[in-house]
């Protein structure tokens, strides 16, 4: 493990700053974090959306939110044909919290981490509550083309629908493949999925 106590002792001479700016925080992160595995230093650079949400404490003005959402909407790529995959594979993806960390194998398929924040299948009691419950999602909202498109898009880039959402942009960030996202759409919408029982 790399350490920098000695370096930190030197850095401590930096002047005290009240309410550091995003740029200053970014400089601190560049100094005090180091790359490990696939977690490289470029991840420290904020994009425009992250900066806007940080500055707004995740509560952007309606006008700003609208502009950010429109920009994010343009990142969504819909595949040809059906948006519904295999709910069984979707359930496994929803369970898995792996992917993109320095301890995950680079290139190995990621999971969706869905149960970390959402209630889905009734048999899984260990679910998080940061996001809304998705129980009976397809049953209450239907599973026509419009709903399919919405669910696919929401998983692909949640920020296109809510600018400062806490949900990762799972497609835009390259976490999940289009096939995987289709499997998650099936988990939510397929009448045979346990989510809709």
């Amino acid at each position, binding site marked *: 493990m790399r350490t920098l106590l000695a370096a930190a002792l030197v850095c401590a001479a930096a002047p005290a700053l009240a309410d550091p700016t995003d740029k200053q925080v970014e400089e601190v992160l560049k100094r005090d974090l180091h790359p490990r595995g696939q977690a490289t230093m470029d991840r420290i650079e904020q994009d425009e959306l992250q900066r806007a949400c940080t500055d707004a404490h995740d509560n952007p003005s309606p006008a700003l939110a609208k502009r950010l959402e429109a920009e994010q909407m343009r990142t969504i790529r819909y595949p040809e044909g059906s948006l519904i995959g295999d709910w069984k594979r979707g359930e496994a993806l929803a369970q*898995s*919290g792996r992917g993109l960390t320095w301890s995950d194998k680079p290139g190995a398929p990621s999971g969706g981490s869905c*149960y*970390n924040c959402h209630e889905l299948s009734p048999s899984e*009691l*260990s679910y998080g509550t940061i996001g809304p419950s998705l129980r009976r999602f397809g049953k209450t909202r239907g599973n026509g083309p419009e709903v399919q498109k919405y669910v696919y898009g929401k998983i692909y880039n949640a920020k296109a629908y809510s600018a400062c959402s806490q949900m990762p942009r799972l497609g835009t960030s390259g976490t999940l493949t289009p096939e995987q996202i289709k499997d998650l759409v099936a988990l939510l919408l397929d009448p045979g999925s346990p989510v809709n029982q």
Partner: protein
Amino acid sequence: MVGVFAVAAVRPWTALAAAWNKDAFGAKTSADALKGIGAVGAAPSGDIHVEAPEIAENGAVVPIEISSAVPGTSSIAVVIDKNPFPLVAKFDFLEGALPFVKVNVKMNETSEVRVIAQAGGKSYVATKEIKVTIGGCGG
């Protein structure tokens, strides 16, 4: 609460030759484990009290507190159906001990947990299902 603490000293095992029921602990089914400890046909009993959470967020540590109100209880055993080796522990209570024990056990998955009390040559059983879940991010 004031406790008395001491640190262990490694020393020769001084008890009588330690007996370990290889057959019972090596059994791969609850039925064989029960046979191994002579508890086939144990009668269900409401006098065995099993205090355990219905859901454990980690199968590596599942606390179980057991006491028996069956008169003359001489031993308590814990058998977990879905574990690769179901017999987890057997406690023999000699003169001076109350038929009580609290212990942390491992559970591979959600399972029935059987607690066997033996008294006067007879066996009694209480069962409880404990669900094992994932506690945190899973990463």
